[in-house]
Every structure is written in structure tokens, then in C-alpha cells.
């Protein structure tokens, strides 16, 4: 992972100019975020049902949709308000690193809780 920085950083210092995001984009993102908020509240009042994937494994659509909307909003904020779309590879890598470790914490912990229900061998 660090190999990349070594190759790109030198170039980036020259290539990477300070990109100014236009207010029009900010306004569009604001509207999208507000719509997303409305959508997630509206969706929570509807029973979206569930999907039995396999015995003992069920996907409930309500929380899934709520999290999907929240994730979309997060991506919008990160890419545009926080300028990651226009940032260096290093910044993108840093964000990816944070998401990865966060998911590792939750995911690896959940492997234990999930499989505890399977009982002994």
C-alpha cells in the first residue's frame, strides 16, 4: 500500500492543484442529502418485509434500506463536502483504510456472535 505513495507523491506535489468545488455542486449535494433524509424517514413508516435467504439467515429490508441511504449520504459528504473526489490518492487511501478497519472491527466481532448460535460441533 505504501509503495504507491512513494511513486505518486512526488508527482502529485506538482500535478495536484488546489481544486475549488463550485457552490452549485454543494447546493446539489445539500438537496440530495435533504431528500435522502426525507426518504429514510418515509421508508421507516412502511413495512418493507424480509427476505429469508437461508434457514437462520434473514435480511430485514427496513434497516437495510435505512443503512443504504445513510451510506449513500456519507459517500456524498465524503466525496464532495470533504473534497475526497478531488484529493490525492493518499487521502483516498486513508479514507479506505478507515472504512476497512471499521468493518474489520464490526465484521470480525460479528463472526463470533453469528456462529455462537450454531452451537457446538
Amino acid at each position, binding site marked *: 500500500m*505504501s509503495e504507491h*505513495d512513494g511513486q505518486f507523491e512526488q508527482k502529485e506535489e506538482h500535478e495536484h492543484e488546489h481544486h475549488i468545488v463550485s457552490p452549485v455542486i454543494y447546493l446539489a449535494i445539500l438537496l440530495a442529502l435533504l431528500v435522502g433524509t426525507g426518504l429514510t424517514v418515509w421508508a421507516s413508516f412502511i413495512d418493507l418485509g424480509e427476505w429469508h435467504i437461508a434457514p437462520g439467515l434473514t435480511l430485514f429490508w427496513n434497516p437495510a434500506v435505512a443503512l443504504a441511504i445513510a451510506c449513500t449520504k456519507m459517500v456524498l459528504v465524503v466525496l464532495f463536502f470533504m473534497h475526497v473526489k478531488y484529493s490525492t490518492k493518499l487521502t483516498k487511501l486513508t479514507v479506505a*483504510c478507515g472504512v476497512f478497519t471499521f468493518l474489520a472491527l464490526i465484521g470480525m*466481532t460479528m*463472526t*463470533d456472535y453469528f456462529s*455462537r448460535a450454531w452451537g457446538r460441533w
Partner: protein
Amino acid sequence: MSAATIVSLPDQSTARIPKMNFLTKENGLLSWLLTGDHKRIATLYLISITFFFFIGGSLAGLIRLELLTPQTSLMAADTYNKVFTMHGVIMVFLFLVPSVPATIGNFVIPMMVGAKDLALPKVNLLSWYLYIIAGFMVIYTMAAGGVDTGWTFTSPLSTHYLNTHVISTGLAIFVAGFSSIFTGLNFIVTIHKMRCPGMTWFRLPLFVWANYAASILMVLGTPVLAITLVLVVLERTVHIGVFDPAYGGDPILFQHLFWFYSHPAVYIMILPGMGVISEVISTFSRKRVFGYTAVAFSSVAIAVFGFFVWAHHMFIMGISNYAALVFSLLTMLVAVPSAIKIFNWAFTLYKGSITFETPMLYAFGFMGLFTIGGMTGVFLGSTGTDIHLTETYFIVAHFHFVMVGGMLMAFLSGIHFWWPKWTGRMYPEKISQFAAVVTFIGFNFTFFPQFILGTLGMPRRYAAYPPEFQALNVFSTAGATILGVGYLLPVLYLTWSLKYGAIAGNNPWQATGLEWQTQSPPLTENFLETPIMDHEAYDYEWLEQQQQKEVASVG
């Protein structure tokens, strides 16, 4: 000892310490307390860390004295619990975690990458203050009556049953955690953004790579410990929380969150030590580190794998068998990059011109003891063996082999190695070689019997034990006495050398790192002008040519 040596000191009759250096630039207490200079902060850290090391060490002495006899003869069982807890808390959070990074790393990393200072000098100073606040809080805890949960704060013991000072210790570690986060953050930023022209990633000394990997763990792991301790403190204050089964919480959740940090913390403690060993082995065998790239990436690999193995601390705690299986397999993965390092150091020694100065002796100690510590870690990582051995003295011996035999040896190796750069004076060679050997012997006497005690079934964390274990415990306590001498000696002769040591000159070891190409002790700005890196790391031929050029120009 071999008479061969690479030490080249300037002519002692004419040599003097440069008048202008970071130690003499400004005077007075305030110039130290408000400094932004990474070398001064490193010095502050060195003093405070040594102080806490000796507090922790004295507590270790008390533990060994108590275990001299099978009965609780020296102190009551409750007191014993407090003593080993404070020993663990101080040694882990106030010594091992900041030891190499915050002292040696702080001192040499900016010089190694060719920068004037760390990227964020004020944050660096803040991190020292946080450390000191945490230190005072721990001392307060001890004075107020101590805490007896063990350094792991296992819930519900810490949240429900005990009425000792869990809150103040928890907050102390919270504060110490942020000190460590800021150090790690500073290192990552410095290594990415402050490298001098020509200093590519693969020209960095391996010490920098190792600290980079450890810093990633500090930045990503420590906050999880911080929030866990906040939750423990909240649980104790409002009597509701997510860990205590009496309130519907899950103690295993605490274990998950705690070990999510505390397993990577093991690598936070050992990786910078491995970095020191890479530097020392190369310098004293006059060879480029064998497989530089492999050693560099093995550090990063240890850091990444380190986040996926934490549940091997929990095999007997009621996690699911399936998860235990997965975590056990992943644990085996970490052994690979560690082994890569050991093998590459061994190959570096092969056909090298080895000399046996003190740093090298400590490094040899590290390689042997860390290998034993690491191999026994594999026993503990496999589920079946772990169930038999965990919570016995086997585990105590295992992590002391890695932490004391590994990290402390590496720390002492590094201190001796960079002492001439730090102070401008050499330490006395003969007595320090003696101290290194004493430490090694004392260490093995102390901790090897504990492996045997563990396999025989002596549990850890008890003040009393069945009489048949006494012989080995006496051995261990006797060894601890020798070990104590081994640790006291460096304090004495290093202090002595501040005034009476031989003048070291710029580069007593003929080492290649950028930090050796400037004066000792260095200027506040480290270099006269921004250095340009025009050679690979550990390029001893470049150094020779450089010296010939100097001779030619003077002549």
C-alpha cells in the same frame, strides 16, 4: 569478546563536544517544558519512561519476592493482586507502548528521513504532557490504594465486583492512549510528507518502516481501547452498561473491544524494537540488511494481520468454536512475517564482518529470546494447546520473552546504539558488554522456569501455590535479582558517561543512516542544510567513498 571493533572515535586530545547543539541551544526549565524540538521531547520522554520503568520494575521485584515461598508470606493476596495489576498497567501503558517510539523514534525518525523536526511539533509536546498526566493519575491510583483487576480490566470483575480505583486507572489509560495516538499520527505524517529530496520509501532505514507500521496500529487501534474504557467508567458510575451481565450486557463484548486494541498493542510494542534490531544488525555486520524489501513489508504485514487475530486471547472465554477456529488459523499467519524478519537478520549476519559491541550483544539477545517467545506464541495460538496452557505461567513466560526479552533488549540495544548521537559521548564499552550478558543470563533464569511451571499447571495471578512448585519459583526469583542488577548497571554507567565518556564524534559506528552524517549531539535544526539522499539505505560502500573524499579534500 572479540578485539575487533568498528568504533572510530576522533582524537580524544583535541576533540570536543560541539558548543552549539540541541542541548545547549537554550537553557532553563521553561526552554525544556515549552520546547517543540523532537530531540528535547525525546529526552523528556526518556527520563519519564525510565522513571516509570523502575517503579514497574520494583513492583515486579515484590511479585517475585512474594512467590519465593508457597504461602502468602510477604503480602496478603489482595495486596498481591494490586501489585501485579499496577506492574502490568505501568509496564504496558507507561513503558512498553511509548518506549522505543516516543524516545528513540522521536529522536531519530526526523533525522532519518532528513527533516528538521516532526511534522507537528506542538502535538508532539502535547503527547508528552498527556503521558505525564496519565503517569500522575497512575501514581495517584497507587497512593489511593491501587486497583486489582489485572491490566486487562476484565468485566464484570472491573465493572461489578471490585471497589478499587478502576475509574482513575481507566481514565489514566484513556489519557495515555491519546498520547500514543498523537505520537503515531505524528510519525505517519512525518514519514509521508517530510522526507528529504531523494529519500524514496525504499531508501528509508528499516527502523522508519517498523515505526510506520506500529504507528498505523496506534492510530487505528488505540481509540477502540479509549471508548471501551469510557464505557467501563460509565458503567461503574451510572450502574448500567453494555458489559455487565447483571444489566443485560455481554462481558465477551468487552473482551472483543479490549483485545481489538490490545492484541495490535503487542505489535505496537514489538515492531519498533524490530526496527532497532534491523539497524544494529546491519551496522555491526557491515552489510546491507538481507532482503530489505521483505523486511520492510513484513512490518506492514504484521500491522495488517494484527487486526484479524485478537480473539485468540479469548479461546476459553466462551466465543464460538467456529470463530475460534478462524482466529486460530489467522494467528498462524502472523508467525510468517515475524519469521521472515528473523531469517533475514540471520542471513544478514551470514558472511558479515561481525563485531560484538554492546548494541549487537543486546540484538543477539533479542533474536534468541524473541524466537523462543514467538514460537511459544504459536503454541498458544492453536486452540487445543491454548486451552491447556492459557492462564498458566506458560503465558506469563511467553509474553515476558517477547516483551522483556524482545522489546526491552531492543530498547537497551537502541539506547546504547544512539547514545553517542544523543549525548555526544560514548558509554563505557566493557562494563556495558558485561551488563548485556548479565541481563541475558538473568532473564533466562527468571523466565525459563516459568515455561516449565506453566506446563506443570501453575496458574498465573495467585499469591500462593502448591509447595511442589517452589524449587522453580526460587530459581525464577534468583534470576530476577540478577536481571535487576542488569537493569541498574546501564542507569549508572550511562549517567557516568554524560560527563566522563569518550567524545564520540559524528559517526562512531561508521553507520550509514542520515542521522550519523550530522554532528553529535545534533543541532536543533538537525542538519546544516536539507540533506539529499543519493544512495540506498545501508550502503557501506557509499560511506567509504564519502570518507575517502573527505580525506582527499582535507589533504
